[in-house]
């Protein structure tokens, strides 16, 4: 039976990244009964992994809600302790892959999302699609990604044929560059309201016909992580690899 350490090394070497600096919670010497792959290692996601008898979790986003050193300030937080204890009780090892995937294999995310959408990419982050409206595009995204609460900037009636994508979080520079490129619309997971959202609004105010779609993190990453699960099955055969689907975190009144 393989240990978590062995499997983490195998996955990171296939990503083409070093296994140093991989954010890992749990005892890496643990023997692995199964692998679960998900967008966000929420408590619900971990419970579903446990039900699937998977104790090695590969998550896009971090398990303790923060990428920084704020974790030290949570050590008296009851929910932190409860989640940590759940991980220990189920002999789980939880690995955050976001940075490694972004740095070395962002194509996996792009390919996974293209596959989920059924779109053919012109380059990993640009798609040319049959002409529709911004509203038509968002309806298609909503149906294919099971996303009811996405938020959209722009006139629903504008024509959309060229689509730029930046799944997960989109930085100010990336977002501004994409909106100034050939695309009619930028589709991202999240971008700050006081940065790229304001920029997109200002483009509209300047008379430009552009759109910006904020899918939410889960809808913008989960299908890609399902594709990652399939990809991991290509070089891990000793344990089952399960893609965990999480519900949309929000509802709208």
């Amino acid at each position, binding site marked *: 039976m393989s240990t978590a350490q062995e499997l983490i090394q195998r996955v990171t070497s296939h990503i083409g990244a070093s296994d140093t600096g991989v954010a890992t919670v749990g005892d890496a010497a643990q023997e692995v009964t199964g692998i679960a792959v998900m967008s*966000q290692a929420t408590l619900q996601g971990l419970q579903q992994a446990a039900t699937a008898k998977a104790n090695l979790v590969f998550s896009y986003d971090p398990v303790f809600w923060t990428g920084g050193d704020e974790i030290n300030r949570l050590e008296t937080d009851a929910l932190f302790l409860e989640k940590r204890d759940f991980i220990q009780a189920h002999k789980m090892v939880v690995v955050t892959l976001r940075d490694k995937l972004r740095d070395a294999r962002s194509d996996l995310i792009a390919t996974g999302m293209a596959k989920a959408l059924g779109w053919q990419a012109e380059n990993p982050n640009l798609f040319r699609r049959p002409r529709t409206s911004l509203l038509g595009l968002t*309806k298609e995204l909503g149906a294919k990604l099971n996303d009811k609460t996405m938020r959209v900037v722009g006139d629903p009636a504008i024509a959309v044929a060229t689509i730029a994508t930046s799944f997960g979080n989109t930085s100010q*520079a990336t977002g501004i560059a994409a909106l100034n490129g050939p695309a009619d619309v930028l589709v991202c997971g999240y971008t700050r309201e006081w940065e790229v959202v304001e920029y997109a609004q200002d483009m509209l105010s300047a008379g430009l016909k552009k759109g910006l779609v904020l899918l939410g993190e889960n809808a913008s990453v989960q299908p890609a992580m399902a594709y990652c699960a399939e990809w991991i099955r290509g070089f891990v055969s000793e344990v089952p690899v399960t893609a965990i689907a999480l519900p949309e975190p929000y509802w709208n009144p």
Partner: protein
Amino acid sequence: MRLTRRQIAAGAVAVAVPAKAATLTVRDVLERMHGQIGTPWFERGVDRIIAGDPETPVTGIATTMMGTFDAFKAAAAAKCNLVITHEPTFWSHQDTITQLQDDPLYKVKLAYMKAHNLVSFHFHDHWHAKLPVDGIHQGMADRMGWSLPAPYDRHIDLLPTTLGGLAREFQRKLGDRTLRVVGDPELPVKRIAVSWGNCSLLPGAPYLNSDCDALVIGEEQDWDLIAYAQDLVTAGRKKGLIVLGHILSEQWGMEYAATWLRGFVTEVPVRFVPLVEPYWNLKKPVFEINTRVLP
């Protein structure tokens, strides 16, 4: 001692009105603001003139939540050339423009501001630091019809409602089509914590765990505080989180800024520019643009 807003405004008028009408410059207005904010003016932070000349004579003042192009157009149409914004003009908290020198939209927006003799002042940190109470918190409480307890904290006691009922109340009072909610719509709610604008895991997690049924915020990344709230709900805690959107969660604080300014700037009109919600969603695909100044 707790001053009422009327007392603050009355005191302000007494010191602020000049003996005779002279040209009021941006610098004059800012100096009066320094004297009225109730806390020593500090240099750290982001508050500064972002575009325009401090010696510009002021024809009118517009306050607004964010220095959007729409807001500047509305201000110019209302002949208000000093635009006091809570959030940035040039798309980052620091209003950093080094990377934007060749940006076509930067050039267009800046040229418009110059052509209309507009001055943009970023008024973020001091308005939050205002004593005796954060100006954004006061203005949002006024909009929601809440009286703030003293000493001021971030908790509000409400008439008993549900998480869904509270969300609909925010939707109605703030004109918020796209607000999003984590938690059970039927959750009973009678005490909430509020953290307008961006709210990260800290201080968000301690707020959620405090003596409240729900936390109301403006904005945060899904894998940060939002995921924490989801986990709290999964773990069986009776809690909810309402995410309003950044602009709609703070902008009535800038209406209060207009009221506050009128207390010590009487030579020129002071107007509030409410921004339209930047987003629509599949449930309400309504597109609005072109902000209007409040009468």
